[in-house]
């Protein structure tokens, strides 16, 4: 099969714009999911009453529903009760809603991997709970949850591919458009795969580098 390079060149800018959108949605979605994740994991770690229950309900809901369905609800459903968000905001909110629970689980397992004796020895030095969290528990927890966090980052970037479902012009949307308009299916699909590789490969390589480094440096008491 001969590829139509002229076509690919012509529509390259469409893909670049779409890729920028994918990266932007991923970036903010992941950022907020980290914030949500940290808050939820600390609440669960300290078993704060009431809040802890709310968080665990949130985590179950978030982990047991597909992002696409979450987005449909946010984008098509919520306006009916007066909450109108742009598609892009819905995408970021949806991604943070989904990612928050995944991040929370990763960070929490990191928090729980910090040994109790570390906390006691901080206490014996007169350190307060908050100071112990900031200086002792959290840094160690973060290091051991990095592999999980990295996996979540890649997972969330991939998940953004569904935002075309709420009419955001991301890579999937552009591809589908071009296939529908011109039947240049191979070209459109090759560009699609290439762009996802350009976005995801560096992230994935970086993630495994960080992981290897951490394993090498390994805290170990």
């Amino acid at each position: 099969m001969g590829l139509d390079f002229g076509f690919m060149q012509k529509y390259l800018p469409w893909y670049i714009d779409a890729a920028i959108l994918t990266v932007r949605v991923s970036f903010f979605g992941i950022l907020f999911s980290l914030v949500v994740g940290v808050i939820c994991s600390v609440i669960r770690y300290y078993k704060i009453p009431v809040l802890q229950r709310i968080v665990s309900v949130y985590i179950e809901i978030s982990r047991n529903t597909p992002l696409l369905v979450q987005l449909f609800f946010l984008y098509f459903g919520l306006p009916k009760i007066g909450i109108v968000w742009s598609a892009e905001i819905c995408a970021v909110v949806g991604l943070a809603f989904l990612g928050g629970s995944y991040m929370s689980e990763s960070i929490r397992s990191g928090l729980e991997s910090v040994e109790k004796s570390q906390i006691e020895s901080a206490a014996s030095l007169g350190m307060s709970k908050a100071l112990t969290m900031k200086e002792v528990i959290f840094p160690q927890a973060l290091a051991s949850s990095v592999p999980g966090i990295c996996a979540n980052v890649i997972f969330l970037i991939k998940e953004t591919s569904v935002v075309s479902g709420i009419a955001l012009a991301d890579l999937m949307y552009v591809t589908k458009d071009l296939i529908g308009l011109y039947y240049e299916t191979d070209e459109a699909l090759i560009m699609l795969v290439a762009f996802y590789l350009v976005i995801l490969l560096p992230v994935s390589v970086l993630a495994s580098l960080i992981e290897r480094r951490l394993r090498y440096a390994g805290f170990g008491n």
Partner: protein
Amino acid sequence: MQDSGIKVLFMGKNFLRLLEGLWVTLRISLIAVIISIPLGILFGMFMTLKNPISRAVSRVYLEFIRIMPQLVLLFIAYFGVTRTFGLNLSAEVSAVIVFVLWGTAEMGDLVRGALISIPKHQYDSAAALGMNRIQTFWYVVIPQTMRRLIPLTINLTTRMIKTTSLVVLIGMTEVLKVGKQIIDANRFEYPTAALWIYGVIFLLYFLACWPISMLAKKLEKRWR
């Protein structure tokens, strides 16, 4: 008309139609899981072979499947393969193929993880007891890997169910599409229908996945 949207659900066969829509994706996930498990076990064992070629091949396969969003894989199968090879695959068949390829990769990686997690001294002790390779596999490896694998496999099922929701984007009529049809048909009478319909779909997915997740969690706790 805030409260009237919910009525749409109970009009005619609307709710039943939604359930039928959900069944479309559930069916795809079930078929894919059932095929993926045996294939994944084989693939997982294949990945533990020491042969450099088999290692490279399985690695490339696994990494490609894993790094690509499942929706991209669906597009390739549905739009690409159809055209390039002149096959006319229906959306459902493309979906099953993609989810089997994906499920096999994921399952294979789980199996590989479980296999290499067995410490070498377990093999040594089995050998010291005079067991042959098949006996070692049957009496030592399988029982130990099963406890790890079963919860993970159940989890894979929920991931599969969630991911099959994507098939609407290659034009299949499943629960989201049925929902949209119902909303459109009642657009003027019940303008708030979207909230209720998508809310119910949200809930239906949760009800489909949550019990399975709980089961996995329970087994994981009990067998740890």
